[in-house]
């Protein structure tokens, strides 16, 4: 499995010491590694080729910088190239000058259209809009029922209507009725959930085109599964040719797929990825950040998403304080440790958090231990710290043998567990100190962590 592009590149460039410029010969192996890495991440092979050509063009002739190793230099060119390909952060929808704004959801079967319709409605509601949902999926069993349940769950308006015969005429009628309903009930956005369809299904693609003509949507969002492989270019291309998509939603990003399809889809449609889906719940919709997904595609983890998740749960000021304390190492007390523990507990499943850590650098190999994390252990650790006096929490060095015994008794644990905890704590302090050093930051090239 692809583990660590940066390490591979370092090795590929070992021979480069002392050479002044990057040239076709000396970056050849690096480019081959990049190619493999991108393919492993499911970026379409033709897109990979374009990217490689570009990078080669950009890299050749560049002076080997002193600040960066050649490997880091090529990674930087690669990252810039990929981020550029993916475009800007664009969690925005276009609204019609004359409401209701119509948003048409399109995509292959099972990609997440219905769920994403609900998430969007929820997101719009939170932004002060009045969305109306309608499902024109008259084909799949219980598809319309599904959207109804979703609408109830998020307390959004839905137009149900009557189906009658399952055909395009019904689909069009339902859509028209829904628009009328939106106007009558003062809903400013109409989200139209459609049936999943194959890009090669002419009849259903025509249905989509006629829906487009009929509804004049401001947005046609292509909902695509992040786990999609090489075929992503084909489906996205066909959908775009027939419908002129305006944006993409990449779903199921809460898994461990590298998400190379994002690059493929973006490349063939030229349309921005507006949102990512990160769970089955209706608030699991996030803005898309190109730099993060690039890290993920390259196996460098989604550490920024992790930080953002933490930020949304953690008191912001506290988090900043914590970060600077952590990085200085010395200031990080057991009290902070406990605070952090509580925050982590608030943030949700540790497994999902660990999944977001980069698979390189200090966190290498941790992901595969995610299963082994014993969340009950959290409570024991907290109990141990709770049994300490405040003085002990702030000055861990005073915790001698007899204090340890007392703490163990007080927390219903044993001395060994207390010892373990103190040892880990000491290690963490050391590690954080190391993280604060610039050399460490350079190793994590490009991962923007606060204070690094």
């Amino acid at each position, binding site marked *: 499995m692809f583990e660590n592009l940066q390490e591979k590149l370092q090795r590929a460039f070992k021979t480069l010491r002392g050479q002044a410029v990057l040239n076709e010969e000396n970056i050849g192996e690096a480019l081959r590694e990049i190619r493999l890495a991108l393919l492993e991440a499911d970026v379409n092979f033709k897109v990979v080729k374009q990217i490689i050509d570009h990078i080669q063009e950009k890299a050749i002739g560049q002076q080997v910088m002193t600040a960066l190793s050649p490997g880091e230099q090529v990674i930087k060119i690669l990252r810039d190239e990929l981020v550029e390909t993916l475009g800007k952060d664009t969690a925005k929808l276009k609204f019609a000058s004359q409401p209701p704004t119509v948003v048409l959801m399109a995509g292959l079967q*099972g990609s997440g259209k219905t769920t994403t319709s609900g998430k969007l409605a929820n997101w719009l509601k939170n932004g002060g809009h009045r969305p109306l949902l309608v499902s024109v999926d008259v084909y799949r069993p219980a598809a319309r029922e599904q959207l109804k349940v979703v609408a109830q769950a998020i307390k959004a308006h839905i137009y149900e209507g009557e189906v009658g015969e399952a055909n395009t005429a019904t689909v069009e009628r339902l859509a028209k009725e829904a628009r009328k309903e939106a106007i009558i009930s003062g809903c400013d956005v109409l989200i139209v959930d459609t049936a999943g369809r194959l890009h090669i299904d002419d009849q259903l693609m025509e249905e989509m085109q006629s829906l487009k003509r009929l509804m004049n949507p401001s947005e046609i969002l292509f909902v695509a599964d992040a786990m999609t492989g*090489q075929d992503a270019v084909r489906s996205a291309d066909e959908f775009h040719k027939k419908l002129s998509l305006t944006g993409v939603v990449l779903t199921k990003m809460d898994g461990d797929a590298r998400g190379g399809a994002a690059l493929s889809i973006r490349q063939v449609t030229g349309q921005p990825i507006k949102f990512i889906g990160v769970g089955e719940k209706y608030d699991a919709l996030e803005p898309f950040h190109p730099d993060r997904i690039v890290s993920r595609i390259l196996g460098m983890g989604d550490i920024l998403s992790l930080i953002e998740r933490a930020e949304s749960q953690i008191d912001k000021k506290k988090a900043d304080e914590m970060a600077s304390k952590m990085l200085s190492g010395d200031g990080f007390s057991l009290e902070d440790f406990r605070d952090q523990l509580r925050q982590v507990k608030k943030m949700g499943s540790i497994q999902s958090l660990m999944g977001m850590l980069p698979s390189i650098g200090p966190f290498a190999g941790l992901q595969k231990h995610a299963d082994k994390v014993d969340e009950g252990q959290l409570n024991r650790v907290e109990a141990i710290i709770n049994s300490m006096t405040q003085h002990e929490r702030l000055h861990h060095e005073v915790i001698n043998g007899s204090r340890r015994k007392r703490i163990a008794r007080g927390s219903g644990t044993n001395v060994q567990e207390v010892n373990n905890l103190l040892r880990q704590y000491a290690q963490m302090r050391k590690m954080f100190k190391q993280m604060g050093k610039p050399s460490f930051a350079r190793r994590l090239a490009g991962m923007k962590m606060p204070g690094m």
Partner: protein
Amino acid sequence: MIQTLFGSLDEQQKPSFLERMKEAVTRTRENLSERIEEVVSFGKEIDRSTLDDLEATLIAADLGNATTREVLGKLREKADRKQIKDVSELKRLLKEELLAILVASNTQPVKAVDGTPEVILVVGVNGTGKTTTIGKLSQVFRSSGKTVLLCAADTFRAAAIEQLEIWGQRTGTEVIRTKPGGDPSAVLFDALQAASARKTDYVIVDTAGRLHTKTNLMLELEKMRRTAQRIIPGAPHETLLVMDATTGQNGLQQARLFTEAAGVTGIVLTKLDGTAKGGVVVAISRELGVPVRYVGVGEKAGDLLPFDPREFVESLFA
């Protein structure tokens, strides 16, 4: 940081940062097997671009780097021994190679004891086609005169139960259900008891889509398996992992983790009526030895076919 906090400390304490990094480097070094260009040791007719084309075909079909490299590598061995004359010969050998991988992973599921229902547990990540496949399977069994009971153990996703019920109506099959949000193991218990009492031939269990990375949801599957076993020894006799043919390299990880947690005995590859080739199942066969049992080729009850490795290999080159 998180790991140091909560992990099993002693065993993980030893490797330092640097050690871990070193480890990573050696790992990658091992991965660096010979490169494809070395394959160029054929006759004149088979040139670099022919091999590039073949490589592109395999990669485009989602076989992945490792499998592609291995298959092409084996081809070279054969070439050395047999003197491949032309491109069509080369292609034929390549197809044989792929076929061999698929055929090798042909394990059979446990046989149900006569007189007890055969229990089929259907699992997979979200939206791959589990519920639809169950409708299709139900159709297959019903039309060969068997009795079937469906178990709606996806109590989580909106209207998942209703969806299965419609498939039940379409195929004339009863569905055992509970209320939304109910305990999947409890409804499984009810279904298996009913099936045992009635001596139903098959019970097919629909489960909620779940990403293989969500440990607690994977544990839920383990619990369901234990429940099944308690009521019908040997159950579930077959655990089908439903995989979408559009899936890329993540499919390997899906197969790996579902096999670990849920004892997958076979794969159903759905949505092959699209343009995706589903080549990741070759990688899965190669690495995990999990066989493909059926393929889905549409959304209707009749759109399920037994997996035919030969046809499948042909379709990779079509």
